[in-house]
């Protein structure tokens, strides 16, 4: 700048106009413009818009009136404030310029429900004092809309000029809505045919209108109740009432030349949109007593007579109120509430999720929902909690100790802020929206309207995030923290949750043993130790996480045991204090997997693993074996050495099961990881056993272990046995008898070491798949295997060898054994017809005989219809027949063989998929059963808690669906088996 006097447009820019050039032009065109006007504009939420609107109104006004408005400081300031806040009301004033005058004289206090009712009734030409006011105006709908907006302008003046509180503004809006409903009813009356049967009709406000906490723009929720009058026939009277109700809905909701008010929504009525629009009081009660769902009672919390027959409205509310307060006793209340919660979260379109004020975790709906839930749970025994208004209810919950005072106050402040923000967003266009706009211009306007003057956009976002953060912790604050107060030894005189109320609440949150839970809470939080202090802070959060799992009671008990074991270790306390992801993961494990929880409680320090995703990635087989080798070398003592190996296994099983429960692994990864751990354990154990047995021998034999069955296929589950065969080869010149004795001793010692009772879980070695089964020798020499398979082998044994794979011991011996197996399992030219027939017969007989008595074949994962055996036999039959010319079939993996067979055209792709799906499903059910119960079982649990937990672990919400899904998938696989295996 060169020191010239500042141009007016430069001055305007400094005073907050974003387009000073346009502003200057507009000001010049307005004769009554003054420095005071510019000052008012510059203080307003949006100077440019306000000026633009003002120019439009000025053009429509005569000069005298305009001067009148612009020269009266109060009128001018109020008008500018309204124009800066709402484009829609600015347009209203431009259409009716006379109404832009005198806004400065709007009183700071709302003139009362009676006043607005009378005003709107008179506007439609109805007598406010008549028992049934009836409209007489020529165009009553237009008249209603204009009069309503006039009153709305008044409300906005109180809101943005006089700074009325959120409570007052939203209550005034509800009064306005009541008055409009009354006027709409007057219009509907005027449209009735003269011979209509007489009736009494009451309009009950529900939702935000019922709670007198209405928005500027939202649907107004209502329910209609009617009764015949003067002995009229009920059917006829209801017909009249239905006419009135539809007339009222039209009078308010229809778009006319003057636009519309809002939609009247009667969907909360019994049976929703399918139900009759109008019912008698008795019919309402009949429905609520028999059919209503939990959410309907929650909605009834807000019922309030709004218009029409006052006495009938009161009678309705008095009759339904007792029902509301017994809702928490109903069957399925907890499940309903949880389902309702999920719906609240699920309904947000993803792209708006982070700008939504209303829906989603931490949204307004969440606050309202949480408050209402506490009202339903505690309001039955405490009449002080029954207000239909969210903020009032919140305050009484705090006053009477159901939630903490500070938490109550913080949440109330956040709720007020978010609702006010929502008001200002809606005011701009008078549109029903709950999404914070993204453009800076709108954000600036909204921020300034809330009184933020610096960088309005930045400050607004900061405020919003700050309050949202508080709201997001609502469950911790409202539901759980007060539970701790119930068990704390506080000064008498401080209001807090009584033990009875605490039990009610725990039950409502899904704890089945609330008394036990309170005892644990007391133990965990008592005292002045650092641990108790940290646990007091963390438990409210943990309790919520526990409640999201299927077994919150077990989780709380598990946590108590964790705390007893680790409570004073600094790193554990740090882990808890930081509320890390580790704490949340621990909560989820404790509440959904007995298997993982047991492993954790055997050695609680493993909880540290949960802090880090890298720690939850399964270790490779190489690193596990290296670790086992080192452990064995380090300990000369067999007991110590095997303890190290088994400790390693326990730690890895926890790692895998934890990652599995937390959804970090797929089925393939779980099987591979479990197989790797078993291999490292067997290999480590074998080294110890060999050292023990052959320590003094001059010529020790070579010794090898062949994995068989699922172990050989690298398909282990949590509950699988480890199938093996043992082989040895005497050193040249060694004594045969001595060598054989030593080899047998090695095998026995290995089995003993892995089974010795200890804090680490045992590993059972099963050698029943060896030649001649249990009748045959436990250990054979290489030569003996060779002789046996050259002479005897049945198709069944060839089939078992398909999954034979050397896993531990002497590598050379393993390879030589494999050479012995190959011609048996992959016979040249394929299995003979006779062998195939024999296999089919054997399978058919097993189906008839191997299923345990009483077991349901449709749910038995191993021997049942379409279960593991069915699928595996298909794969193995294909391998025996075709592995000689399809090299890919020479695999120990079931799925690998099936996929290769499909690629080679031996199976159709859809058949292959049906088999694979069933096999994987049976596998994951078996794994989930072990994770849930801690022990293996062969059938899908068919009812009860086990089924619920298994379904939860498999991400299936309705337990019956799991059974359906399992039966369906395996039925389809069985169809394939019948065709492919038997034909």
């Amino acid at each position, binding site marked *: 700048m060169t020191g010239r006097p500042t141009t007016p447009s430069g001055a305007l820019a400094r005073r907050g106009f974003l387009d000073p050039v346009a502003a200057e032009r507009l000001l010049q065109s307005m004769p009554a413009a003054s420095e005071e006007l510019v000052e008012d504009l510059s203080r307003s939420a949006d100077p440019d818009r306000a000026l633009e609107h003002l120019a439009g109104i000025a053009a429509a006004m005569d000069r005298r009136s305009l001067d009148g408005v612009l020269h009266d400081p109060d009128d001018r300031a109020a008008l500018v404030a309204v124009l800066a806040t709402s484009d829609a009301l600015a347009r209203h004033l431009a259409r009716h310029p006379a109404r832009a005058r005198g806004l400065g004289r709007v009183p700071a206090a709302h003139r009362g429900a009676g006043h607005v009712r009378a005003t709107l009734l008179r506007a439609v030409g109805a007598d406010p004092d008549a028992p049934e006011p009836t409209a007489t105006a020529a165009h009553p709908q237009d008249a209603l809309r204009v009069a309503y907006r006039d009153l709305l302008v008044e409300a906005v003046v109180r809101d943005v000029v006089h700074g009325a509180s959120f409570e007052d503004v939203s209550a005034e809006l509800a009064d306005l809505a009541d008055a409009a409903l009354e006027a709409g009813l007057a219009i509907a009356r005027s449209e009735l045919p003269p011979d209509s049967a007489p009736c009494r009709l009451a309009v009950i406000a529900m939702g935000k209108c019922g709670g007198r906490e209405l928005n500027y723009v939202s649907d107004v929720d209502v329910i209609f109740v009617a009764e015949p009058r003067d002995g009229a026939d009920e059917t006829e009277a209801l017909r009249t009432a239905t006419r009135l109700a539809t007339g009222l809905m039209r009078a308010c909701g229809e778009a006319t030349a003057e636009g519309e008010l809002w939609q009247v929504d009667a969907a909360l009525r019994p049976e929703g949109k*399918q139900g009759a629009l109008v019912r008698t009081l008795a019919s309402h009660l*009949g429905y609520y*007593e*028999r059919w209503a769902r939990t959410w309907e009672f929650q909605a009834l919390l807000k019922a309030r007579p709004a218009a029409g027959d006052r006495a009938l409205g009161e009678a309705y509310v008095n009759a339904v109120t007792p029902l509301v307060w017994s809702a928490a006793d109903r*069957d*399925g209340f907890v499940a309903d509430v949880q389902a309702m919660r999920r719906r609240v979260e699920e309904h947000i379109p993803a792209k708006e999720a982070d700008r939504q004020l209303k829906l989603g975790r931490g949204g307004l709906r969440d606050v309202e929902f949480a408050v209402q839930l506490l009202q339903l749970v505690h309001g039955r025994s405490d009449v002080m909690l029954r207000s239909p208004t969210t903020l009032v209810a919140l305050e009484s919950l705090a006053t009477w100790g159901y939630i903490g005072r500070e938490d109550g106050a913080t949440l109330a402040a956040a709720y007020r802020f978010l609702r006010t923000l929502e008001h200002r967003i809606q005011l701009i266009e008078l549109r029903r929206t709950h999404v914070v706009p993204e453009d800076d211009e709108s954000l600036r306007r909204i921020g300034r309207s809330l009184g933020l003057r610096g960088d309005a956009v930045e400050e607004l976002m900061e405020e919003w995030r700050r309050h949202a953060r508080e709201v997001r912790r609502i469950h911790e604050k409202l539901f759980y923290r007060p539970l701790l107060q119930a068990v704390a030894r506080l000064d008498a005189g401080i209001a807090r949750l009584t033990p009875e109320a605490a039990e009610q609440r725990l039950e409502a949150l899904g704890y089945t043993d609330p008394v036990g839970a309170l005892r644990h809470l007391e133990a965990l939080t008592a005292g002045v130790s650092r641990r108790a202090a940290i646990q007091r802070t963390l438990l409210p959060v943990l309790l919520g996480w526990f409640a999201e799992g299927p077994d919150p009671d077990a989780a709380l008990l598990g946590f108590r045991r964790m705390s007893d074991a680790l409570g004073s270790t600094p790193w554990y306390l740090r882990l808890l204090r930081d509320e890390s992801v580790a704490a949340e993961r621990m909560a989820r494990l404790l509440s959904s997997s007995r298997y993982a929880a047991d492993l954790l409680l055997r050695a609680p320090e493993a909880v540290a693993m949960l802090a880090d995703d890298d720690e939850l990635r399964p270790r490779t087989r190489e690193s596990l074996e290296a670790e086992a080798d080192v452990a064995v070398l380090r300990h000369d003592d067999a007991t110590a050495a095997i303890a190290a190996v088994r400790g390693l296994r326990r730690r890895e099983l926890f790692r895998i099961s934890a990652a599995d429960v937390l959804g970090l692994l797929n089925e393939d990864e779980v099987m591979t990881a479990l197989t790797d751990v078993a291999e490292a354990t067997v290999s480590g154990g074998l080294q110890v056993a060999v050292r023990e047995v052959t320590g003094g021998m001059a010529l020790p034999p070579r010794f090898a272990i062949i994995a068989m069955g699922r172990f050989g296929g690298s398909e282990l589950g949590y509950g699988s046995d480890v199938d093996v065969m043992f082989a040895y080869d005497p050193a040249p010149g060694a004594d045969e008898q001595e060598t054989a004795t030593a080899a047998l001793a090695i095998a026995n010692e290995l089995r003993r070491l892995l089974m010795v009772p200890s804090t680490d879980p045992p590993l059972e070695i099963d050698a029943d798949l060896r030649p001649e089964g249990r009748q045959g020798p436990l250990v054979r020499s290489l030569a003996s295997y060779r002789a046996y398979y050259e002479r005897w082998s049945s198709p069944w044994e060839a089939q078992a060898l398909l999954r034979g794979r050397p896993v531990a011991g002497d590598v050379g011996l393993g390879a030589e054994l494999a050479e012995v197996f190959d011609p048996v399992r992959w016979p040249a030219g394929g299995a003979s017809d006779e062998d195939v027939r024999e296999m089919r017969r054997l399978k058919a007989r097993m189906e008839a005989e191997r299923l345990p008595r*009483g*077991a*349901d074949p*449709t749910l038995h994962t191993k021997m049942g219809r379409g279960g593991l055996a069915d699928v595996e036999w298909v794969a193995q039959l294909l391998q025996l027949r075709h592995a000689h010319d399809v090299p890919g079939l020479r695999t120990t993996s079931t799925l690998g063989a099936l996929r290769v067979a499909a690629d080679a055209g031996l199976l159709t792709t859809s058949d292959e998929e049906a088999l694979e799906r069933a096999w994987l499903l049976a596998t994951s059910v078996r794994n989930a059963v072990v994770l849930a119960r801690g022990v293996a079982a062969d059938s899908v649990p*068919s*009812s*009860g*808690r086990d089924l*619920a937990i298994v379904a939860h672990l498999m991400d299936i919400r309705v*337990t*019956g669906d799991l*059974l*359906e899904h399992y*039966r*369906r998938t395996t*039925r389809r696989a069985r169809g394939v088996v019948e065709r492919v295996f038997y034909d």
Partner: protein
Amino acid sequence: MDKQSDFVLRTIEERDIRFVRLWFTDVLGTLKSVAVAPAELEGAFAEGLGFDGSAIEGFARVYESDMLAKPDPATFAVLPWRSESPGVARMFCDILMPDGTPSYADPRWVLKRTLSRAADLGFSFYTHPEVEFYLLKHAPGDGPLEPIDHYGYFDNSPQSIGHDFRRQAITMLEAMGISVEFSHHEGGPGQQEIDLRYADALTTADNLMTFRLVMKEVALEQGVYASFMPKPFRDAPGSGMHTHVSLFEGDRNAFHEPGAPYQLSKVARSFIAGLLVHAPEITAVTNQWVNSYKRLAGGGEAPAWICWGHNNRSALIRVPMYKPTKGNSTRVEVRSLDSACNPYLAYALLLAAGLKGIEESYDLPPGAEDDVWALTPAERRALGMRPLPLSLNQAIQEMERSELVAETLGEHVFDFFLRNKQAEWEDYRRQVTPWELDRYLSTL
């Protein structure tokens, strides 16, 4: 305790009810009843009454046999027949698992599930059954197979047992809240037909279970015997249960479209097409006995070929003559069902097949205008008419391959039903019938 349950308990007190029968239906459609003393009822309302599910056809296996029967107080009715009076009432039950969730084995739940799937599409399903049955002079074992009269279709038989029977039966049905639309003597000797008023499918199915029992009771009081066996006489018509079905969207009949051919909406046409496409696979349920197929082979009005026709009584699906004043009564008549089916399962499958037609927008083939029985096999082939399964065995094989039936019945009922019917067929195959002895013994 809710009002309805209170009402039941009060009525029991006031009317001196000594026993309450709790009713439910097994997978094959047999009514099961357990009597409880009024004192136990309060507990049954709250938690259900425990019973051993393994004793009921198709409910549970031995190791998971605990189930709960939870009476529905809305179905409370005092039983009006003399053998039960004074003081016996009944209620229908839902069958629950021990954890309180519905049991997949309960046929009522199968139908409820299917109805709620229809509700998700905005439809409610209404049915109106015409139940045929025979009145015989003697109960099985008490005398020869002999009808009570030799009247025929619509015969007015003023002094006959049949006339008295129908009057008393209808009075009793009405006393239990079941409205009768129509009743008359049917075509066979001693054969009766009683048509129930249309109602939602679940109510109709409950009513049919009551209906069969009422007929048996009234017959007993009059010294005769009522049988729902599909085909007791070789030379007289079998007992069918033609059922008129319609879908409503709210108050509007979704089958009706003014101006369309036969006033049938696109929804109706696709629904019929669904019934036709899936007819073979649902027949094992709509016609579930070995004997059912003797009725289908009987000619006349029994449908044996898969086709539809406007007012054609030989077609599987008949579209009745349209009455211009009654747009809301547009409906289609399914003629394969017999009176001995399980109405819960059969209605669930009709609905599922029709909905499938709607969801997949099946095209409706041209209707049949001739008497289908009079066509030659070649003509029928030329018109693209497939036969319904000829025997229970064929029907089972069609059903076994059906995803639609498996999904609708649920895997548990599907599996049980197939196994049970396979066993029935195996048993039947081993029979040596009088027909064989007559024909072969003297000549071979």
